[in-house]
């Protein structure tokens, strides 16, 4: 089964939902509507032996309509061929059916597409951010997100700015005032050698440098 044969079978099954195949550098890709993506993927897996989902990525075509696109790269271990599906996603309604039920590997890929672009996946078992932290407000791979990034609040951790008590002030326990002569005498500094220490003891009048 070659990719062209798989596309022909898809066309027979789903008629006019499948676009004409585009061939570039020996690879075949077809554009499919997002309502049919789950059914198409299931068909390709069971009928055409595309048992592996190699990659799933979002693309932001800023300035075009529909703005986003989800690309699925399928692979068949038995027939040793790739096929690419492109699903256009418009900016107003950024939801696509999840294909996690077809290939388990789509789980993290879809989470990443959600994290980076904001494309939601219906029926995804755990649609949370995966690379950025939960609660990060932006979607970094969108074209209108600047390369330098935007300031955002860091995630809540066990040790946060409002839960940490700052160190006790001067005069409190275990805090020594620095720089005064009395403190130098109270807490003698580490000397390099025993000889220097002995010298200090034998010549106590020697002025200490502050």
């Amino acid at each position, binding site marked *: 089964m070659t990719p062209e044969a798989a596309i022909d079978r898809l066309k027979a099954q789903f008629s006019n939902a499948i676009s004409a195949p585009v061939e570039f550098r020996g690879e075949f890709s077809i554009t499919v509507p997002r309502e049919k993506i789950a059914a198409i993927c299931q068909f390709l897996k069971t009928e055409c032996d595309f048992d592996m989902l190699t990659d799933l990525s979002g693309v932001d075509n800023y300035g075009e309509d529909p703005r986003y696109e989800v690309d699925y790269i399928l692979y068949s271990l038995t027939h*040793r061929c790739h096929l690419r599906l492109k699903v256009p996603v418009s900016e107003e309604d950024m939801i696509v059916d999840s294909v996690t039920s077809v290939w*388990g590997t789509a789980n993290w890929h879809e989470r990443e597409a959600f994290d980076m672009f904001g494309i939601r996946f219906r029926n995804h078992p755990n649609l949370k951010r995966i690379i950025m932290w939960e609660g990060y407000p932006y979607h970094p791979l969108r074209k209108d997100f600047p390369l330098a990034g935007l300031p955002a609040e860091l995630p809540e951790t066990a040790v946060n700015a409002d839960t940490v008590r700052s160190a006790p002030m001067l005069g409190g326990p275990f805090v020594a005032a620095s720089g005064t002569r009395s403190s130098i005498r109270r807490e003698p500094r580490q000397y390099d050698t025993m000889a220097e220490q002995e010298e200090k003891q034998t010549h106590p009048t020697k002025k200490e440098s502050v």
Partner: protein
Amino acid sequence: MELIDSATRAQTAMDEALGSEKMIINMGPQHPSTHGVLRVVLELDGEEVVNVWPDIGYLHRGDEKIAENMTYTQFIPYTDRLDYLAPLANNVTYAYAVEKLMGMDVPPRCKYIRVICAELARISSHLLGLGSFAMDIGAMTVFLYLFREREKIYDMAECISGARFTTSYTRIGGLARDLTPEFIPMLRKFLKEFPATVDETDKLLTRNRIFCERTRGIGVLTKADAIDLGVTGPCLRGSGVDWDIRKSHPYSSYEDFDFEVPIGSVGDSYDRYLCRMEEMRQSVRILQQAVDNLPDGPVNSPDAKILLPDKEAVLTKMEELIHHFINVTEGINAPPGEIYFSAENPKGELGFFIVSKGGGTPHRLKIRAPSFVNLQALPVMARGHMMSDMVTILASIDFVMGECDR
């Protein structure tokens, strides 16, 4: 309606009485056994792992965003830092991906040298993977023995590219420079000495009672699960699937080489260990053939529009000067289109999905990282095992966070 017998009733009563509460424990991003900055949240029932949630993203540097703002050649040093344990392999894969987009071919000498780079990177990565695997289990001597061999590979990488570690050796359409005269004798010497180290490690670990007890039957990934989860590389082959991109879609003249691909049977950590050991031996075989049959000729493709022209021509002729200027400032002119190219990296299938809308910078560069996908299989492998097996399983997947988080 279920018939619950008295034994089951007694068991549930005992469980309730003992009140087995599950503990949720954090195996933090800073941990000697998580192989990088990986956070794993474990749900433990005593010592037994009930559930595992890997939490990634601690090494996210925005490589894909950066790629959209750089020319294709400028991105090469970033590929070093993806799988930073095998930088030469990433360089080779990226170069082939962009060359596929450009529709250009490289001369045979370049292909053979790239095979040498990729296989040296494979040996280097497996040495570290196996070394840290053994160290996590307790066999610390193996770690040091294998790292001594890695030093030799670093010396060779320095000879070939100038840097031990982040090599940035390949260019679009060729290599940064041809081999120096010292490289081939160094490589031959390494190939003579290296198999002895592999044999020594074999003697230390493969029939070692403690090693076997700690790795056999641990972290089993069935064939169906592995394919469903998109796992690639030694993890997939350890589970019994006969798939190696070097054999199924040969690139870079791999079809000229005679080598075998080790396949496991059970899919446990021991099988993955054996796969990596044997892959190192097969890499030595490939390297020997590459070195013996290295063709002469140019290393760079003759297409001057893609590669930088010779410096003498740049300084004396007008056309070459213009080409040099445009290549460096604007980048090579890629045709509009999308490609996906993947290669057999030591960790699995590293793929680059490049969407180009023309011009010198990619519109979208998605890095299909093997570690990202392989790590997804962690919950499936770890459920039901004990906490100490968690360490074994993490080490046997052999992921690297640099490419997982990008």
